């Protein structure tokens, strides 16, 4: 059976996504930094779903290494899912450019470096799909997290362009915009329960949207409408708001 490559595999959404695909019989490459911490998780996939799960050491910030790592995969994946995400510290990022750069490079530059390579391969093979996990935070800049948000906005635009480029060779690109999700990344935030999804719910949405060949997914679904409202607030009003 074919392989799916999941990048940023240590995140809770990525792990839930891995289980969704494994449940449908796909083999899984789990890629990320210090990936051997996912040893037990990879074994969990093989026991639960009786599939192959392999670990791939990959540092999203080490751009130069990406081509070689991709080349080294025995069997090329039929689908690539990037779940790389670094929320960072907005306040720190305003003062210290290193933090700002880390947020931008993790969420955007690194993903571009990797997906360029994947896109070239898929374009040549005329098959495959790409799922990029962006964020609703990229739909409008807010003072609480606009460095992260702007990196995600860039990623959203990149994925949109990629979808346009690859549609002629039948390679589907799905942009995922999760709202609040109950994960390690957000465990210290006080999220409103009714608006917060579990990683499993998000993963199911992603799997279903990808299998149906959708372009853009808001998850949970109501975030499409929440963001629609937020996007229509005029800038003169929005600039004085605290949301």
């Amino acid at each position, binding site marked *: 059976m074919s392989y799916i490559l999941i990048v940023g595999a240590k995140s*809770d959404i990525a792990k839930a996504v891995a289980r969704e695909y494994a449940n449908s019989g796909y083999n899984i490459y789990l890629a990320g930094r210090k990936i051997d911490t996912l040893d037990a*998780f990879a*074994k*969990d996939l093989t*026991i*639960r779903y009786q599939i192959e799960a392999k670990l791939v050491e990959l540092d999203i910030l080490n751009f130069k290494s990406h081509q070689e790592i991709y080349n080294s995969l025995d069997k090329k994946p039929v689908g690539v899912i990037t779940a790389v995400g670094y929320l960072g510290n907005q306040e720190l990022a305003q003062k210290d450019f290193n933090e700002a750069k880390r947020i931008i490079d993790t969420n955007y530059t690194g993903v571009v470096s990797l997906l360029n390579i994947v896109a070239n391969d898929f374009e040549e093979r005329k098959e495959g799909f790409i799922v990029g996990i962006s964020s609703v935070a990229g739909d409008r800049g807010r003072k609480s997290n606009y460095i992260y948000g702007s990196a995600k906005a860039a990623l959203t635009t990149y994925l949109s362009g990629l979808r346009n480029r690859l549609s002629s060779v039948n390679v589907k690109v799905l942009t995922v915009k999760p709202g609040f999700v109950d994960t390690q990344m957000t*465990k210290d935030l006080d999220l409103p329960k009714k608006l917060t999804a579990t990683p499993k719910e998000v993963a199911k949405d992603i799997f279903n949207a990808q299998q149906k060949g959708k372009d853009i997914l808001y998850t949970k679904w109501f975030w499409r409408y929440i963001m629609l409202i937020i996007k229509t607030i005029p800038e003169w009003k929005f600039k004085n708001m605290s949301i």
Partner: protein
Amino acid sequence: MSKISAWGNYPVIEANLIKYWDSNSLNFEDNKEYIAYGNGRSYGDSALGENIVKVREKDLFLDFDQKSGLLHVQAGVLLSEILEHFVPRGWFLKVTPGTKLITIGGAIASDIHGKNHHIEGCFSECVEEFTILLDSGKIEVCTKESNPDLWRATCGGMGLTGVILDAKIYLKKIKSKYIDQTTIKTANLKETFEAFEEYKDMPYSVAWIDCLAKGDSIGRCLLMVGDFLEDGDLSYNLKKQKSIPFNFPTFALNNLSVKAFNWLYYGKVKERISKQKVDIDTFFYPLDAIGHWNRIYGKNGFTQYQFILPKEQSLKGLEEILYEISASGKGSFLAVLKLYGKANDNWLSFPMEGYSLALDFKIEPGLFELLDKLDEIVLKYGGRIYLTKDVRVSKENFEKGYPNIEKFREYRKEMGFDKRFQSLQSKRVKI
């Protein structure tokens, strides 16, 4: 701080939730008390406290041995996850309660039992070993032989010896997802007891009692017994779940609606003995088919009263208790009766040889007074109350039923667990 409750939706408390923790770096702070929380399916306050350690996220399958059926999983794995992946491969849980939506850690901490208790005993009987976090950084792998005290205190110990991290459990081989079920309809309690005796060699048995029946009909039941078929059909498809979307108004569950429900359920079975072919979910987990069924009891919540009486006292004791309930007019949707096998030697395990009855009650004025009255009858006949379902039993009424309670208390003190692990329940019954 977050709002949290268990399955009974009573009480609802504010607590500090600890999730996504790393067992090697979970730092217990001095002078703070902690309690582990699995999937929130115990009914009362046994997993509620000031600082709640959420275990559900620890959900990895660590190893499986095809030959022996020994499965090594983390404590947050649900029984339903094991079934989903292993029934199609011909494996089933050796011991399972009436819901599959509980964690392995919870199964051990409650030393749960199921419809085959009279044959297979409690959950701890299928556990080879467990790993437990006793204090910050102090992790012990425990088998019955390696540390018998820790074993006997932890199995059934309601999370009061530490946070269970993972366990190795034996699964059993099955050749079908279907159960060959026989339903026996009885007219009164005496007949019900006779039926249990007659079918005691069947691996699985449970009775549904119409506890609002009066006079000569008190104790009439539908006894369901069965065993796995061997037809080779192991396709286990998860059914689409129906769900109760919101709390029912509290008046929805009045005496009349329960009576109607009981009448329909009991009345739809015509013959004295009938045969059915039912699947695993229908036989073992009928209520799991309705998500959030606890909401039918309304926002004030409910509790389950489960007790057990020694076999020789059961008939008299149950008659007295059923009479008391019938006279009170307080309805119970579910009254589940079961004959148990011999007790094990875990200090706080609930089962003993005899009959257990479990009844649901919505929380309302006058209920706890009724349950106090029932406690007295239970104790008079040498029975005990099940902590996993309990939210109100007094220290005195609780401890009379458990002869090993002092051993448990002393062990906790000696190990310093009493300073570290406490639930609302453990404080109430002072264990």
